[in-house]
């Protein structure tokens, strides 16, 4: 009753595609993955007719119950043969521990949950396929890592990861390579997730104290790479997380408003902040949100931003339009903000290396 043949077929299709997606290593395999979806008879969508009926009936009953409690003389309006069973049912519902509303609310919640979970299953697979496509189009390789261990390892190298008083993890990690005109480098792209824990104690008028703990989740996205030309310098367009050094202000008033720069040695900052570098950083600030750059003592560079679309974007079409989706998969989709960070990094290298 709950699983009609169409839904069973959709379930089967999604399960098999999900399994196959794990094996996908190149673009051709990704296109092949779409074959079962393309040959699927009918639309790739769940039939939620039953669930929608349940939602409608539950809402109707809830409205009816509301008017009954407001004194609507419904039982008097019913014919004699129906009035007594209706009254008994109403009496039974009143005996329920959570009140007469509870069965309807439960039915409503279950029906809505089934509809949402089915939709998210379909959208989840679409997004997973799209994410794989983005990785392939941008020549990124997924790295399996222990999220918290990886965050700890980064924390040892960069102060940028000294955020969150409760928990830090690297939720996603990718490796890539950038080939510029003059320089090339390997990089790691990451999704850094950190949690701040706040505990507040309140006392009411009777002197009773209560403690409430809240957890706020944050994400920073970025890249790490060996830079080599600068050490111990931070350019902060977002809040500092313990970045050290002497404050340095280049001549640009716009830069001073947009960034705070810190360097262990002033000479490092004086050499680094060439006018063209200042312009590159101001341009970067306009392209991404809350950008921070940190050159650590080893000369590695960590750039972080607040833009989630650095590493992923939403798929513009769903799997229920497989032809359209395949067409999109066959196009090259660049992660524009990632490209921007990589190009900026390359420019910073060009303007900091020595030509002689």
């Amino acid at each position, binding site marked *: 009753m709950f699983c009609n043949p169409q839904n069973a077929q959709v379930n089967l299709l999604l399960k098999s595609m999900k399994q196959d997606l794990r094996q996908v290593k190149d673009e051709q395999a990704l296109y092949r993955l779409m074959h079962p979806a393309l040959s699927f008879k009918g639309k790739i969508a769940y039939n939620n007719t039953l669930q929608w009926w349940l939602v409608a009936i539950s809402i109707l009953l809830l409205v009816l119950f509301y008017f009954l409690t407001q004194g609507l003389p419904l039982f008097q309006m019913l014919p004699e043969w129906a009035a007594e069973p209706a009254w008994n049912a109403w009496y039974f519902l009143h005996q329920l521990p959570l009140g007469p509303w509870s069965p309807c609310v439960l039915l409503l919640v279950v029906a809505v949950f089934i509809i949402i979970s089915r939709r998210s299953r379909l959208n989840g697979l679409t997004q997973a396929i799209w994410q794989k496509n983005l990785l392939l189009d941008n020549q990124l390789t997924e790295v399996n890592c222990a999220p918290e261990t990886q965050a700890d390892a980064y924390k040892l190298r960069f102060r940028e990861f000294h955020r969150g008083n409760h928990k830090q993890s690297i939720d996603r990690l990718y490796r890539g390579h950038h080939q510029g005109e003059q320089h090339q480098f390997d990089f790691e792209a990451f999704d850094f997730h950190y949690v701040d824990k706040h505990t507040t104690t309140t006392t009411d008028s009777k002197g009773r104290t209560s403690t409430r703990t809240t957890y706020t989740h944050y994400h920073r996205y970025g890249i790490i790479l060996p830079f080599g030309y600068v050490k111990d310098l931070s350019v902060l367009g977002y809040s500092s997380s313990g970045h050290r050094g002497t404050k340095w202000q*280049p001549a640009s008033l716009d830069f001073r408003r947009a960034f705070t720069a810190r360097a262990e040695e002033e000479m490092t900052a004086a050499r680094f902040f*060439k006018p063209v570098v200042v312009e590159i950083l101001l341009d970067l600030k306009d392209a991404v949100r809350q950008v921070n750059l940190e050159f650590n003592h080893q000369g590695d560079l960590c750039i972080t931003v607040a833009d989630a679309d650095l590493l992923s974007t939403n798929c513009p079409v769903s799997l229920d339009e497989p032809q359209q989706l395949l067409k999109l998969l066959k196009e090259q989709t660049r992660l524009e903000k990632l490209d921007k960070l990589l190009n900026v990094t390359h420019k910073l290298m060009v303007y900091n290396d020595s030509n002689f």
Partner: protein
Amino acid sequence: MSPTLLIVIIVCVVIAAIILIHNAIIGRFNAVQRAWSDVIAQERQKNKILPALEEVAAKYASHEKQLLEKVTELRQSLTQLSADTIDVKTLSQTESHMGALLKGLTLTVEAYPDLKASETYLKLMREITEQQDNIGAAIRIFNRNVEQFNNGIQIFPNSIVNSMFTHKHTLQVFDDSEAAAGFEYKPNF
């Protein structure tokens, strides 16, 4: 609140505002001077490439005496630039000398294809490109700072504070008259 206290508070607020505006004008003026120093510092970076340019010119000296002369003109022009006084005219002349030198270099390279392929020339061109980018950026930063400084002394109520206490004059932005001559359109400022 008594009228005397109200007057005292208003006077204090006005004095604080005057101090803040005065300090902001001075801060922006200093930033303009600093930006000008950066322009000069970047211009003087050209001294770094002059030996390499002379090396190229000397190698082809018998045919390209003009190139050496242009290097000398640029060197003389660089010595006239001062970080202490904002002199956009001399800066403009230096940029013209650099332009003439680059034209001469291009002609030399066209006459000698082996020079174009040489490592010294490639490194030199890369350095010249980066230097020109830096000078361009330094001038844009200077002009932007001048704009903000001029705004800072011309807008109300800063104009009153400036005329009564700070006494700063509007500054001239750098513009390339040679490039501007190429346009038929002339803005009627």
